């Protein structure tokens, strides 16, 4: 029987090549799209699950709540905490500190800028990063030992067996030799813990900054701490034990806080700070802890993927119903010959399964071919790896069966239910546009139109935030990396060398960078209400504000000839004046401010700058201050170039750099690109939604094309009679298109409020956002109608041009 089904299925599919082709192609595209999105989702949810003891590994995080703010935390940990936890909790099996740093690496004549990670010895006891060469137990025993990844070894040496080789690395002032003790397998893309070069924490333990942080329980140096708990330990859920631990080392937090009179009146809630243990598997997808991505986005992607697949399935169903238009007789005969309904259902499902298996195979080949493009789009390095995602084959098999069932069940149930005598007497017309297929087509367009409206709104918001005047001039500014060089000495020389050259408009520097991926330095200041407020500090050159185009709204700029300007003068922004000082710009001038801990010198406000957006536009401007340190040791040099082709100027900057700093690469970014990078996610999402919208419109049109063809076939007689009665081609096209235009109009009416609601919600995340305008809906509606009418017209014109005599004879 099955052989019979398969044989018939093949013949039926082969007989209606165009419809079968449209059907299979549409489903293949849908499956390819869904597979890629599914791969992305599986990848995102698979983060850090590959560690053998993943269920017992936790990151130590600091958690804040209260003061009316949303609870949240940070993985940035204080240096002594990891060791203290190991010491104080018997159920902590291992503890490890991880600290990343930038460094220069010398390989032959070449010098690279790379990153190095310092970790305690217990690193390989906790994490599962298999070694190709070397011994995990001894790989980090000595401070001069280095574990290198396979990828890095191949990049540097062209081979992987590099144990024993010496690599020169410069983290401070000079290159120092390190011995490669082990070569690790490449770090999986779904790992939160990453390294290229791994070195013992012992190497930096005597560094003054690390030593200082090891004694100061408040000082952070960009370090993370992980612990592995013993089997059965419930420490992660026993918050009281963690609170006691906090209390032990942060006893002063328990003392009542000094409050201003206003704060007392207002009964401002305090911020509660605690340590928590965050499961390692939670790191990537917990947005409450800094650096975590919002799983909402992953679910959104799965929803989009589901929508595209649903559209493909709807297509499949409507076209399958269409394909069965000529099969009424066959169904009737089979029933007369004794076929049970279940047997017919089986036959139709077999056909559906056959087509979905073929489509799934084509879809997967397509997905594989499109993977590099998708990786670019999603900014990931995904691969269809069965070893990494063992669940993938089952998900795909399940998906194929589900598609076959979803798409095949309606035709199977409907067709098999016909009374044989009625179909044999041709009293039932199978296929065509009934209420069910009309609803499906409408649903397809609801989804497609919704996706396109969303894409346009995302693009509008992106364009808005890109073009928004963020309060300073970020165009034509080159930001040069001055980390790891003797910048205190080099910067003045470099500035001297380039500032008088043609095309160089100004040169300045700061100890902090600007834009995406640049760190921020913050101090706590007690505000006028007695609350501690974070203030972002920019230790920069005298001309920093001028060079960056940051305007002053009160007071004056720094003046190199006034000695006190490099001692205790500070320029603050309007946000600081309002939020911290609670006064006016004019009154703020001359005021003295001091950090909350009181361990820094008092600074006198000499100027107030206009607010500028140094962060992405989801944030409002936070309090900021600029000052000129007595000894400026910049990490970034900013050079403003004349507008136009920058190549000549860059060559000049490079040449001068090499003269002064021959042992460090000339590494730079354009500042506008760094700010654009803030919106990488938005760009990615708009591209993904755009593609999904385009694909869904394409798929919906395929379905529409098939249905229009059917409508034309089913109405052959009517068209013939109308033509005999005098209908023109235009009349016939209008007759056939009218119905579909109505469906698109309904789809637009349904999709518009839905898309408005979703996008309005999305826009709330931005402090600066666009207003959704009516024309977005109008343009999308017009576009959808145009595409649909074009699609339908192809069939309608064909039907309208047919000789009516032939139409009537056919009927």
């Amino acid at each position: 029987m099955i052989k019979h089904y398969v044989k018939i299925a093949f013949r039926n599919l082969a007989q209606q090549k165009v419809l079968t082709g449209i059907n299979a192609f549409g489903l293949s595209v849908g499956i390819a799209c869904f597979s890629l999105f599914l791969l992305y989702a599986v990848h995102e949810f698979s983060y850090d699950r590959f560690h053998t003891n993943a269920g017992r590994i936790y990151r130590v995080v600091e958690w804040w709540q209260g003061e009316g703010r949303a609870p949240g935390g940070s993985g940035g940990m204080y240096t002594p905490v990891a060791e203290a936890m190991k010491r104080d909790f018997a159920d902590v099996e291992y503890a490890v500190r991880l600290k990343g740093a930038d460094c220069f690496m010398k390989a032959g004549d070449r010098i690279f800028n790379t990153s190095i990670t310092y970790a305690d010895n217990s690193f390989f006891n906790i994490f599962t990063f298999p070694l190709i060469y070397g011994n995990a137990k001894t790989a980090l025993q000595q401070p001069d030992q280095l574990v290198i990844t396979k990828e890095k070894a191949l990049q540097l040496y062209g081979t992987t067996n590099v144990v024993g080789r010496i690599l020169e690395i410069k983290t401070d002032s000079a290159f120092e030799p390190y011995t490669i003790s082990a070569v690790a397998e490449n770090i999986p893309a779904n790992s939160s813990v990453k390294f290229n070069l791994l070195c013992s924490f012992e190497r930096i333990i005597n560094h003054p900054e690390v030593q200082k942080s090891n004694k100061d329980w408040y000082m952070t140096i960009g370090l993370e701490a992980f612990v592995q708990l013993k089997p059965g330990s419930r420490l992660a859920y026993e918050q009281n034990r963690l609170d006691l631990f906090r209390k032990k080392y942060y006893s002063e937090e328990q003392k009542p806080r000094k409050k201003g009179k206003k704060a007392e009146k207002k009964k401002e809630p305090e911020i509660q700070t605690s340590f928590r243990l965050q499961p390692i598997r939670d790191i990537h997808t917990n947005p409450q802890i800094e650096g975590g991505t919002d799983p909402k986005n992953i679910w959104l992607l799965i929803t989009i993927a589901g929508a595209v697949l649903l559209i493909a399935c709807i297509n499949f169903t409507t076209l399958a119903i269409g394909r069965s238009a000529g099969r009424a007789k066959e169904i009737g005969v089979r029933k007369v010959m004794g076929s049970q309904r279940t047997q017919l259902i089986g036959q139709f499902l077999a056909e559906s399964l056959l087509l979905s298996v073929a489509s799934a195979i084509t879809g997967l080949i397509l997905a594989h071919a499109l993977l590099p493009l998708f990786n670019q789009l999603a900014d990931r390095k995904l691969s269809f790896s069965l070893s990494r995602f063992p669940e993938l084959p089952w998900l795909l098999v399940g998906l194929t069966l589900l598609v076959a069932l979803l798409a095949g069940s309606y035709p199977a149930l409907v067709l098999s239910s016909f009374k044989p005598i009625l179909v044999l007497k041709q009293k039932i017309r199978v296929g065509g546009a009934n209420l069910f297929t009309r609803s499906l087509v409408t649903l397809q367009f609801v989804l497609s139109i919704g996706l396109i409206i969303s894409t346009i709104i995302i693009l509008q918001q992106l364009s808005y935030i890109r073009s928004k005047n963020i309060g300073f001039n970020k165009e034509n500014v080159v930001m040069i990396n001055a980390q790891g060089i003797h910048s205190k000495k080099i910067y003045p020389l470099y500035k001297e060398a380039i500032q008088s050259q043609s095309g160089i408009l100004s040169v300045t520097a700061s100890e902090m960078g600007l834009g995406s991926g640049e760190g921020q330095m913050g101090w706590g200041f007690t505000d006028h209400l007695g609350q501690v407020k974070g203030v972002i500090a920019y230790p920069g050159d005298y001309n920093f504000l001028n060079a960056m185009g940051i305007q002053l709204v009160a007071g004056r700029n720094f003046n190199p000839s006034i000695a006190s300007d490099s001692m205790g003068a500070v320029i603050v922004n309007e946000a600081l004046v309002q939020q911290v000082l609670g006064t006016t710009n004019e009154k703020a001038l001359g005021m003295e401010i001091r950090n909350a801990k009181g361990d820094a010198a008092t600074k006198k406000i000499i100027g107030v700058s206009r607010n500028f957006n140094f962060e992405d536009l989801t944030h409002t401007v936070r309090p900021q201050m600029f000052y000129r340190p007595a000894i400026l040791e910049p990490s970034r040099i900013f050079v403003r170039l004349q507008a136009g082709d920058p190549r000549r100027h860059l060559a000049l900057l490079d040449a001068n750099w090499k003269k002064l700093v021959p042992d460090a690469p000339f590494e730079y970014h354009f500042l506008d690109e760094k700010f654009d990078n803030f919106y990488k996610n938005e760009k990615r999402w708009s591209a993904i939604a755009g593609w999904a919208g385009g694909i869904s419109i394409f798929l919906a049109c395929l379905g529409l094309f098939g249905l229009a063809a059917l409508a034309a076939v089913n109405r052959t007689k009517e068209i013939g009679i109308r033509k005999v009665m005098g209908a023109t081609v235009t009349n016939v096209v209008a007759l056939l298109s009218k119905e579909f235009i109505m469906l698109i109009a309904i789809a637009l009416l349904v999709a518009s409020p839905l898309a408005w609601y979703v996008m309005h919600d999305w826009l709330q995340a931005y402090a600066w956002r666009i207003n959704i305008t009516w024309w977005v809906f109008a343009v999308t509606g017009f576009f959808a109608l145009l595409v649909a009418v074009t699609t339908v017209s192809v069939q309608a014109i064909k039907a309208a041009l047919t000789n009516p005599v032939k139409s009537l004879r056919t009927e």
Partner: protein
Amino acid sequence: MIKIRDLEKIYRTEEVETVALNKISIDVKEGEFVAIMGPSGCGKSTLLNILGLLDDPDNGSFLFNNIEVAHFNERKRAELRKHNIGFVFQSFNLIDELTVFENVELPLIYTGVKSGERKKRVEEVLDKMQIMHRRNHYPQQLSGGQQQRVAVARAVVNNPKLILADEPTGNLDSSNGNEVMSLLTDLNEQGTTIIMVTHSEHDARYSHRIIRMLDGQTVLENIMV
């Protein structure tokens, strides 16, 4: 073999009620060859459909081999039909996507006959119908007469006790029509009961008895000698 009493079939639309069979009673004995005649719309095809368990009556009794089948459900009807009844239609109703062999094989598939046995029986019947040389052809590659021979082959391949023929020569020329009627006569002589709806007096003369219908009722019975 067949005993129907006071059988009624009424077709209703929103405004019109059409009585297709009006308390009709007929008996058909095993081995008989009965022709049903009457003008268009007299209810003869409706009667044939009910006899073939393709349709169910609204009222009355229908005994098939002494079993009351008037209100069998679809599954039971299909079961009884596939083992006992063969059909021959005016428009052949062959499945275009299947070859001659596969069309004839179809009833055997649904009765669960094993593949080897199916092949043997299909070849036997194709041979008997002298259409063996066309076994791998598709219906549209055959003449009308050949298509109807395939349809007869398909109707008899399961050795049914009853063959229902709905104007079997309606779409054929006289030579092919005579050939089909000879085939049906041969089958009847071998013991198969045949009930045939026809407009043709010529074809009706092949039968043992002619039942004439008008407005859903039997009006006359002619015994052929």
